[in-house]
């Protein structure tokens, strides 16, 4: 634990330096409606803690979680399908890549028209942003399994399913964790974008409302909260990964 802290010391010092620079610069500009100081932002978070933590954070988190869960199911499903069948690989891979060329932020207002101001238009934005890295990374993981290992099991008389469980899944697991760690921040961003475009609650929505009131600190407060949440979630997944995975890459 202590070593981890010491390892992060340069980063923390650098961050502190940046924040101080920001504080000084913002004090000099003295226009808190466009550039609030970090201290003002922290104060704002504290003032608004009730509505931020009990209304808007849960709203954003539910969008994130539903979106992430659907993306995981979809991504894993597509990855396995592409790994199992060359036909589906050829059919799906280009489409999956092409889906990433859609500028999600510009098409998202349409989702609001189609699915209303409720949760599903935001979930869709999240899915569109996150299923891609999950699909591609897990597919690469499944591909990384060595043919020789599969063959060895086949000489033991293993079935296709046994080969999948004993070779493919363990090979793909480190990739899977990388995908989840990538997808968490992206899904939070997706949720916030969705809310920014049209919602009745959520941190993205809150940030936008503050924008219309020219409350600079109010715009930043939910953003800080989102970042902290994302960092904590990634940290949690990393911890889980360390417990579950005893190796990474070929020795």
């Amino acid at each position, binding site marked *: 634990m202590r070593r981890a802290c010491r390892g992060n010391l340069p980063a923390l010092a650098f961050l502190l330096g940046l924040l101080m620079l920001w504080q000084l610069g913002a004090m000099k500009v003295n226009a808190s409606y466009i550039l609030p100081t970090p201290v003002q932002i922290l104060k704002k978070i504290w003032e608004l803690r009730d509505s931020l933590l009990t209304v808007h954070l849960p709203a954003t988190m539910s969008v994130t979680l539903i979106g992430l869960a659907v993306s995981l199911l979809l991504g894993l499903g597509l990855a396995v399908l592409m790994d199992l069948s060359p036909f589906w690989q050829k059919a799906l891979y280009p489409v999956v890549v092409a889906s990433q060329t859609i500028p999600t932020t510009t098409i998202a207002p349409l989702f609001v028209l189609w699915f209303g101001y409720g949760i599903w238009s935001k979930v869709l934005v999240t899915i569109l942003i996150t299923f891609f890295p999950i699909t591609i990374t897990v597919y690469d993981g499944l591909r990384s399994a*060595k043919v*020789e*290992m599969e*063959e*060895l*099991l*086949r*000489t*033991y*008389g*293993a079935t296709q399913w*046994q080969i999948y469980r*004993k*070779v493919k899944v*363990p090979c793909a*697991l480190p990739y899977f964790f990388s995908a989840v760690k990538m997808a968490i921040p992206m899904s939070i961003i997706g949720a916030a974008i969705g809310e920014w475009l049209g919602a009745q609650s959520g941190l993205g929505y809150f940030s936008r409302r503050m924008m219309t009131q020219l409350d600079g600190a109010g715009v930043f407060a939910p953003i800080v909260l989102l970042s902290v949440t994302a960092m904590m979630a990634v940290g949690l997944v990393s911890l889980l990964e360390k417990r579950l*995975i*005893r*190796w990474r890459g*070929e*020795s």
Partner: protein
Amino acid sequence: MRILEFERVSYQYASEDFDIVDQLSFSVESGAFHCVIGISGCGKSTIFRMTNGLLQPKCGTIRVGGIPITQQKNYCGYMPQRDLLFPWRTIGENLALPLEIRGGFSGKEKTELVEEALADVGLAGCRDKMPQELSGGMRQRAAFARTMLTGSDLLLLDEPFSALDFLTRISMQEWLLEQWRRHKKTILFITHDVEEAVFLSSSVLVVEKTPIRSLREIPVPMGKTRTRQDLANPEIVALREGLVDMLRKQVGG
């Protein structure tokens, strides 16, 4: 008793316009130790891969223990060139793999069999180590123990020592002979190292040319118990040189 029989077996790779194995017939007596030698790319691995079922012959029949291999499972233990220990499994879990695939073993039975196999190859106490923690020779011994746990009487070893350094290799050869004497298995061993072939085999099977139509059997006049000093016998030296000549002729064209 014949443990392995090839009857007019042919194989053709899709990328080639000839049968690399062409109407090949040969048989192996139970309890024998044969090395199969031939130059690189001559098709000796193809013979192995047909025997263990990874390749299907174009025609002909392969029998193990008198039964065509298409009608049985788990009839041979195959040990490939690289040890292929799964890096995410401990040594013990790696050894348990063939048992897991065969099924029907309780957790306790598996542990006992694995412990026994590890002690047998001189790796007692390594059960909870990861493969990365073991040296090259130890990894090969673990891989051999895993092959033994397939429970088959016929073992196919495909250049298992080729990646080891010289000293490790010769001690592994002595170790393998000792294992063979003790367990009374039938071993087929691919190598392109003539000295290794002579030291290990009761008789050497030479691939004289590609396409493979026959294997030339050359008996090695040494007992089952042998030491490296025996390799210096004039008779053995002559045999070795004869084999080298036979192979060099093919490389020269």
